[in-house]
């Protein structure tokens, strides 16, 4: 049955019933487009973030006081360095700076530019960076979001920070981080560690927290226990906690859309069921003629199901391609704001094109299976019509 003639007849039928199919095709395309956009965006963000996980510290140590994280004494880092399995203990200086004119926060990160590794990383990130010239004056490197905001207030070349001791500190804008790093750098200001201490009010005997590195993953659990037992007012954050948090963040927002999708899909299935249940007299005649010509019930069902599958598959393909274009070429306007948020500095990033094919196949199944289920019963009902009665 399924030869060239069958498909020719199928296309004829599709063309004849185009009014019936076109509305379903448009709605289906729209549903697939919205869901695919959300899934593609969430997945691309997650992929980008997961690539940065390797650079994170294996443990982060914070000192806790009254349920809040406070500055950590530098002496702790020497103490932790002695634990077997810890290869490096790095005190970090960072914090948030409140930008009053716009009521926004910047993240100031202090970097020791004399550290060889840090200097290498910076050279990799910003080509043609003259370190000597950079360290001559109080300079800073800023993200795109910070630059846009400072420009808005006419701070084109510098910004005057206010220290907690009511002193003013003028810092020049040296360069802007590349746009590709905006997911992390958008609200960040990187400057010399001593300058950051002064602006954030962190004394020389303290740091914001301590990053610890452990090259052997098998030792992680053991080291964790040792760290927790060192002090009573300590908080130990493992790399796996950060990975879990990333997953939670994106699953939460993506999950909300999935719930909405379920509701939309159920409604759509009901509409489909009703639409295909309405067998018109011309349809009845058509089926009657086919049956009289010797088509079995199975053949008619195959014809009807294939007809619906063509519509569903076409809609899926078109919806997915449109979603790909929307997310990776147009950078998902409007939808991206739901993931990045509206409250703080506007984020302008281009996502790296990536598709998780297992996710695409899951999307396909989640869409095609309910679609075909909704169509199958009306198709069967239509095909069991008595041919004589139908043609009368």
């Amino acid at each position, binding site marked *: 049955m399924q030869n060239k003639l069958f498909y020719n007849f199928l296309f004829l039928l599709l063309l004849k019933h185009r009014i019936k199919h076109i509305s379903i095709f448009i709605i289906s395309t729209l549903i697939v487009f919205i869901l695919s956009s959300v899934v593609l965006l969430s997945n691309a963000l997650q992929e*980008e973030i997961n690539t*940065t996980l390797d650079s994170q510290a294996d443990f982060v140590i914070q000192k806790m006081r009254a349920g809040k*994280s406070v500055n950590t004494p530098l002496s702790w880092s020497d103490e932790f360095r002695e634990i077997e399995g810890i290869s490096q203990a790095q005190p970090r200086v960072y914090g948030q700076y409140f930008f009053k004119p716009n009521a926004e926060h910047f993240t100031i*990160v202090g970097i020791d530019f004399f550290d060889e590794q840090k200097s290498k990383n910076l050279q990799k990130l910003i080509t043609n960076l003259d370190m000597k010239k950079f360290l001559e004056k109080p300079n800073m490197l800023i993200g795109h979001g910070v630059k846009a905001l400072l420009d808005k207030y006419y701070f084109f070349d510098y910004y005057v920070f206010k220290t907690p001791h009511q002193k003013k500190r003028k810092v020049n804008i040296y360069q802007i981080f590349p746009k590709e790093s905006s997911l992390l*750098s958008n609200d960040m200001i990187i400057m010399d560690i001593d300058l950051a201490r002064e602006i954030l009010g962190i004394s020389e005997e303290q740091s914001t927290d301590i990053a610890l590195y452990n090259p052997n993953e098998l030792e992680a*659990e053991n080291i964790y226990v040792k760290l927790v037992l060192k002090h009573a007012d300590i908080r130990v954050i493992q790399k796996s*906690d950060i990975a879990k948090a990333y997953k939670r963040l994106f699953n939460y927002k993506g999950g909300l859309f999935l719930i909405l999708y379920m509701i939309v899909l159920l409604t759509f299935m009901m509409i489909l069921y009703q639409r295909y249940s309405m067998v018109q007299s011309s349809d009845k005649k058509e089926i009657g003629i086919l049956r009289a010509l010797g088509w079995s019930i199975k053949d008619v069902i195959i014809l009807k199901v294939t007809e619906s599958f063509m519509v569903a598959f076409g809609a899926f393909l078109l919806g997915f391609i449109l979603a790909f274009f929307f997310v*990776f070429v147009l950078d998902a306007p409007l939808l991206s704001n739901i993931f990045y948020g509206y*409250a703080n500095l506007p984020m302008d990033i281009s996502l790296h094109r990536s598709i998780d094919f297992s996710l695409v196949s899951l999307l396909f199944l989640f869409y095609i299976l309910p679609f075909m289920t909704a169509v199958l019963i009306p198709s069967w009902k239509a095909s069991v019509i008595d041919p004589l009665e139908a043609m009368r």
Partner: protein
Amino acid sequence: MSKIFATLFSVLALAFGLTCISLLTVNKSTALQSFAQLSTLPGLALSVRYFEPRNRFYADENERFFIDMRPISTMDFIYAK
């Protein structure tokens, strides 16, 4: 009649092909990784309100187990030797 569908199918196949090509030919930038190595901070610059901390991913796992009930791991035996 199937010419119309053949044309439509060709357009869809072409669009799909272009999507695949753009996916395969993309050059991954290492800027994000380099920045992560430089700052070593995990918090995303996703917009947050002023009362939300930038590093909101940090969860307190201190009370995950009772302090005296240390879980035995294989490394304990290695250290014991």
